[in-house]
């Protein structure tokens, strides 16, 4: 085959229809946004997969475009009297049509959003009902305690629609959002917006978080530098952080079944993917689902 043939085919691809090129560029942007949303939904401030994605999309290949408008969200946990509030989550994002929810575990074991910011373009998204805001408003403010049983359910459903249409922060937390125009908004507390209402809890089955804060059935990625290779595991140092692992921590990564370890080399950076249920932060152990060379170009 001559080189000219290949080039000719390549030239033909260059000239493909603009609509397909635009479609690919749009999908690329949306995919990045979708990834952000997913990472946010699983409390991903320290998620390695997000760090890895950031390294690739925003570091090596596609940093935020200069003209993109960046929002900064900061979440603080209020401390006991006389102590400073502790910052527990920060997020920079470019798409305010993305829903943000940062879940935490309350002292009683219930999982609640510490902060919720609805998608600006679709305020009813995620409420799981067909109820409009106007419909919800007509039921939500009724007295649930004195309402008949059949109405109580409707009132609570309406409240959920209202709750998930506004930005709020759980009591005991403080949240600020810095907009691209430089204005800073203080996110109101839940009790301030909805006095007397119950804060919604997150369905444990749906999110299935482990004690380490990772979703049991969510897949994560972690970048590691290999320092020792054994028959069925490798000893590595993490090069990115994902709770419960800190950057630079030594971890034992067990190979998946039938894994060909010949691609693993000492000193090389590897991407390790695993499910939340397959890691143990205390002992620094990860049972890998897949492992691949990250620096193989």
């Amino acid at each position, binding site marked *: *085959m*001559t*080189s*000219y*043939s*290949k*080039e*000719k*085919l*390549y*030239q*033909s*691809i*260059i*000239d*493909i*229809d*603009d*609509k*397909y*090129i*635009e*479609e*690919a*560029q749009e*999908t*690329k942007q949306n*995919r*990045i946004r979708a*990834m952000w949303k997913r990472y946010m939904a699983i409390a991903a401030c320290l998620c390695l997969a997000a760090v*890895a*994605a950031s390294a*690739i*999309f925003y570091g090596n*290949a*596609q*940093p935020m*475009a*200069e*003209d993109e408008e960046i929002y900064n969200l900061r979440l603080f946990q209020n401390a006991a009297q006389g102590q400073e509030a502790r910052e527990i989550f920060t997020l920079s994002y470019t798409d305010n049509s993305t829903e943000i929810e940062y879940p935490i575990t309350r002292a009683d074991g219930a999982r609640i959003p510490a902060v919720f910011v609805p998608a600006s373009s679709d305020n009813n998204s995620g409420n799981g009902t067909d109820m409009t805001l106007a419909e919800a408003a007509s039921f939500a403010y009724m007295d649930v305690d004195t309402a008949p049983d059949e109405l109580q359910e409707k009132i609570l459903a309406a409240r959920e629609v209202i709750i998930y249409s506004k930005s709020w922060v759980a009591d005991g937390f403080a949240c600020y959002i810095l907009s691209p125009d430089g204005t800073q908004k203080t996110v109101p507390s839940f009790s301030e917006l909805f006095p007397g209402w119950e804060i919604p809890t997150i369905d444990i089955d749906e999110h299935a978080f482990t004690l380490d804060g990772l979703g049991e059935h969510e*897949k994560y*990625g972690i970048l590691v530098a290999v320092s020792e290779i054994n028959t069925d595991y490798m000893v590595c140092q993490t090069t990115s952080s994902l709770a419960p692992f800190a950057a630079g921590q030594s971890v034992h990564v067990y190979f998946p079944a039938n894994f060909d370890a010949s691609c693993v080399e000492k000193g090389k950076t590897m991407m390790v*993917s695993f499910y939340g249920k397959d890691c143990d932060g205390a002992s620094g152990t990860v049972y890998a689902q*897949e492992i*691949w060379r*990250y620096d*193989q*170009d």
Partner: protein
Amino acid sequence: MEDNQIIELFWDRNESAITQVALKYGFYCHRIAMNVLSNHEDAEECVNDTWLRVWNAIPPERPKAFRAWLGKITLRLSLNRWQKNHSQKRYAGLEVILSELEECIPSGRPIEEQIAVNEITRIINMWLGTLCKEDRVLFIRRYWNSDPVKDLALACGVSPQKMAKRLFILRKKLKATLEREDIFV
């Protein structure tokens, strides 16, 4: 700034058009050139050549899909540079893409003896229209944007090996289409 406003600046022969297009699409064009040439200096020169080409083309042109149009200019300039220099320089980016595309070429006589570029483009457009959106986007991101396989893999949540296999299947499908269209007859 909106694309049509930038195009108007070009039509007005306002030099800030170059600043605006570079601000909005500088990184996009640089990445396209960089993926092909894998050399920052050469990619930068290609991008600067792109702005000059755009300055000379508008007016009279008024591109409808400005981003795609810019990308095509950058790609053609990158390909020209590759053709001019590749015997002296190793441009890893396009070398890999071309070696993959070689698998799509039906065996038999070389393409250049048989058919014009625009006819192949017509067939590829038709073939792209038959693919599901995800496959179509993957194909374009790999062979038009020259995005690395590992980036595509990460975006789709699969390993690079799985992504490479999927792209291999797409190349085979394109080859079958080119054969079916008798482009070498």
